């Protein structure tokens, strides 16, 4: 049951930031977000540029092949196997690449 408290405990924030190691966590979040966005946008923009300017039959097929990824379910078991083979598992670069790859289908459209 919610009840009005006598005083406000601002030190709770400090406890959470310290105990939850939020500084490191936030730094990692920023690194993944910025890295994945940079790689994903760059790569997708390059692809979209070529595919939209050169409307050959082959390029249209490639376009729809990439667009298909929006609806395609991700298979995480085999994805982890791929990450193991490429030695990208448990690395920061690996997760950045993975997030970038996941944004490619919707970014290219």
């Amino acid at each position, binding site marked *: 049951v919610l009840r009005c408290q006598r005083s406000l405990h601002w030190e709770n924030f400090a406890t959470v930031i310290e105990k939850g190691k939020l500084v490191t966590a936030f730094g990692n979040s920023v690194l993944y977000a910025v890295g994945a966005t940079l790689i994903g946008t760059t*790569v997708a923009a390059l692809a979209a540029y070529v595919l939209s300017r050169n409307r050959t039959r082959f390029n249209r097929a490639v376009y729809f092949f990439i667009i298909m990824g929006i609806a395609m379910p991700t298979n995480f078991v085999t994805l982890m*196997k791929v990450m193991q083979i490429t030695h990208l598992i448990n690395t920061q670069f690996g997760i950045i690449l993975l997030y*970038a790859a996941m944004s490619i289908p919707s970014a290219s459209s």
Partner: protein
Amino acid sequence: MKSKAYPFYFASGALALYLLFFVLPSVMGFYLRVHRLEQLFVEVNFVGLDNFRLIFSSGSGQNYLRFVRNTVVFTIATILLKTVIALGLAVLLTNGIRRLAYFHRVVMYLPAVLPMLVVSLVFKSILNPATGLLNTTCAQPRAGLYGAALAGRCDVGAALGDRRGHLARHRLHHGDPDCGHCRRSRRSTTKRRPSTAPAALAAFRRITLPLMMPVLTVTTVLNLLYGLKVFDIVFVLTNGGPGRATDTVYTAIFDEFSKGRYGVATTLSTLCF
């Protein structure tokens, strides 16, 4: 019309990443579908279509088709509710609200910034049957909207400031629906309403809706994909319970993964595709 200015290797980066992280796992998934794995690619037995048979048979302990039905119900219901409510709010934000329009738009967009997980956690505590905010508020007599409705003093409309409820309350208080106060306000509303409301509705149906059709198609497709892939809300709010009554396809997939039945999980994930 092939041009040298747009070489194909520009697309190679996107294609390489996409092939490696999307297509390759999916192709490997086809292999997984017809096998039974004890450990991840250590001990593999060929079982043919047994995984498919397990999912489509009802007598196999788990009723997988029920999860599919849950998912479909969730998808259709959320598409309808989201589109109707959001469209109404959007019309209001662009036409109805004059003052502080940008402020209202920011407020409307704010939930998109919050992670779904946090929202679900907050709602889990609100909807808790024993200690949640919703039920405790309902239980208090004459407290809040539902309390007022339950207490039978006035209808929900009265709590909302609706005119109908206002009238009913007056009738309750002094048995006369035509007291001066009420008649005055009723006259003023009846004079205004018939001239604007049907016209606005007609304008919405004849002009706004046809022009919105392309946008509505896109949002419906996106909502459909989200609904079929729903996982986080269900996982946090009910975790598929009570029993497995509210499991959706993706929470069932998660469950199979954690039991190590990768083949069944992969087969389930193809159902949505």
